[in-house]
């Protein structure tokens, strides 16, 4: 036993003399942190660890993935369905990405709430903001590499948005696509951005970020009524470290380690149980598509659907510009109270932003603005058999036309159809025949006018059917009428 220890010490001594391990450990693992460091401080190290997992899983996925439009999708099919543990590895990469997006927002919110970005840690915030942007770019470019319909149209939509940039819009859009259209040049471009360009940026900023955390120390847990004053803060912080500090290892580090292990375990379990994101249909501009971003961008998709059309250019360019501008500018307010109890506006901002995002993601999956077209042929839904009960021949034709004239793409009857327009299940209660005719012919309120395309016979049939749509009592009456 003694011999083993002696050999171990010998090896360590030999390496230490040449590498300076003790010196490095002293400033990293053993650097002093305030004793008040608690569970709110664990998100950053989890992010770094997940990023490392993303790099490693990405490297191995790249051994099989082919960044060429005519093979990318097939190579992903191979990874997902045939390659040993392929779907698990893809799953870890996908759920790891999801965890990264989620954690970076939590990490940011936690340090925003505790005012940790105030003097002398403004650069922590700025480098972190860069990492936030780069992480979102990674999430966006990652979903494109699947080269399915969602990916193809996400690039088209991305290019359309980039084109709204003042003056240089067209150039920015074409630079993204790698040419005037999405095609052969596009995928390899995004591949290089996803695996080299952006990760290089992330590594750079993580390095600076961690250096700053060590150089300026971890912020102490804020105390209400103890504002930050740049003139005195640094001396006060040194006192805290001196009187109430402890080495990073073990008391802070074990919390970080435990949290990371929990997150990574969750990622792996999700990867095993659910695998990677479903591939969906292959990218093909010649068949109908129903594109949709992954969850981490769907809130933005929802915003674009709901804002007034005339404001779209501002929402696309101005809102992110102002948003990111504020993100970078507000550490200028680097003095004053840090504790959330004394910063109600900060608390309100985080709660509001969290609530708004969750709502938008939810609405984004409901898609009430969307016409309902089914399957790869984008067909309009058809009425249930029960919706035909007790109808005259003219009314039956009208019921047929509900699908034939695509009414059910936007309107619902007996729980069949889209949500874009009003539910017509009981429209007969609200509107008489004249009003129905007027609405159909003239449209309005987002509904197209059908005056030019409907024959009088079809119009009569539609109106006669819609008249029967009444609540229980009324419907029997209408159905048994003339």
């Amino acid at each position: 036993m003694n011999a083993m220890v002696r050999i171990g010490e010998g090896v360590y001594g030999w390496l230490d003399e040449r590498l300076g391990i003790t010196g490095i450990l002293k400033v990293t693992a053993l650097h002093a942190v305030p004793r008040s460091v608690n569970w709110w401080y664990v998100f950053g190290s989890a992010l770094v660890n997940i990023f490392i997992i993303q790099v490693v899983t990405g490297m191995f996925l790249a051994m099989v993935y082919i960044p060429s439009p005519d093979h990318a999708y097939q190579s992903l099919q191979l990874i997902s369905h045939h390659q040993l543990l392929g779907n698990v590895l893809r799953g870890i990469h996908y759920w790891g990405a999801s965890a990264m997006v989620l954690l970076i927002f939590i990490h940011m919110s936690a340090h925003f709430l505790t005012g940790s970005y105030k003097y002398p840690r403004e650069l922590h915030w700025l480098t972190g903001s860069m990492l936030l942007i780069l992480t979102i770019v990674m999430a966006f470019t990652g979903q494109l590499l699947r080269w399915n319909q969602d990916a193809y149209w996400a690039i088209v939509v991305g290019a359309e948005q980039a084109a709204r940039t003042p003056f240089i819009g067209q150039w920015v859009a074409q630079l993204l696509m790698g040419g005037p259209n999405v095609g052969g040049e596009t995928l390899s471009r995004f591949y290089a951005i996803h695996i080299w360009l952006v990760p290089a940026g992330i590594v750079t900023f993580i390095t600076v970020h961690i250096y700053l955390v060590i150089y300026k120390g971890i912020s102490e847990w804020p105390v209400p009524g103890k504002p930050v004053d740049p003139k005195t803060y640094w001396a006060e912080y040194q006192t805290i470290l001196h009187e109430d500090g402890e080495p990073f290892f073990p008391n802070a580090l074990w919390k970080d380690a435990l949290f990371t292990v929990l997150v990574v375990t969750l990622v792996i379990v999700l990867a095993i149980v659910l695998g990677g994101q479903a591939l969906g249909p292959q990218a093909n501009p010649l068949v109908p598509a129903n594109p949709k971003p992954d969850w981490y961008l769907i809130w933005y998709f929802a915003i674009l659907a709901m804002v007034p059309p005339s404001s779209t250019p501002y929402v696309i360019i101005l809102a992110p510009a102002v948003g990111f501008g504020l993100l970078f500018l507000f550490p200028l307010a680097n003095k004053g109270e840090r504790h959330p109890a004394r910063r109600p506006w900060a608390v309100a901002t985080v709660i509001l932003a969290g609530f708004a995002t969750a709502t938008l993601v939810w609405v984004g999956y409901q898609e009430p603005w969307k016409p309902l077209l089914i399957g790869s042929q984008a067909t309009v839904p058809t009425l249930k058999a029960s919706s035909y009960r007790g109808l005259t021949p003219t009314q039956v034709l009208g019921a047929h036309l509900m699908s034939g004239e695509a009414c059910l793409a936007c309107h619902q009857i007996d729980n069949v159809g889209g949500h874009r327009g009003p539910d017509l299940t009981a429209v007969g209660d609200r509107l008489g025949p004249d009003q129905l005719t007027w609405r159909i012919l003239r449209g309005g309120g987002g509904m197209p006018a059908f005056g030019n395309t409907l024959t009088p016979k079809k119009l009569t049939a539609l109106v006669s059917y819609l008249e029967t749509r009444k609540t229980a009592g009324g419907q029997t009456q209408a159905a048994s009428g003339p």
Partner: protein
Amino acid sequence: MNFTRKLLNRETFIGLFIVSLGGLGSIALGIPILGFFLGPIIQQPKEVWRDVGPVDKFKVGSTVQVAFEYSGQLQWGGSTKYTSAWLRRDSGLQFTAFAVYCTHLGCPVHWLAEPEIFLCPCHGSVFNGNGTVVGGPAPRPLFKYDVRIQNSRVQIKTEPQPLVT
């Protein structure tokens, strides 16, 4: 003498020299890299006419989807080498080709023949048979490609993806 020593001593001179060397090197490297990166917007492919079928294939008054290859496409573009248009035969030799890209955010609009409308699957923009906006967030009519008839065949002129700027 003292003044010059302070302003430009040996160390400052060598420091400036190293920085200048680095700067020159960066420019020498940066120009080809930047040029390569900006290539796609500097080197625009020439637009060409693409055949989409004989005139007789299309019924007067109907709108159908036709596929054609973009200009300057790479061999490995797969199915994404192509794009499609909604081609309507207005009358005898009169054709209109609508781009599939919705003018809101570029999603592919879908033609519904009976009610004669284009529907966008993303945010529900609606266009009538002439490509005019009749509902939803789209800010302008559908884009159109040039169409010509050559030897009784319909041809569409390729174009960069239409962008609302």
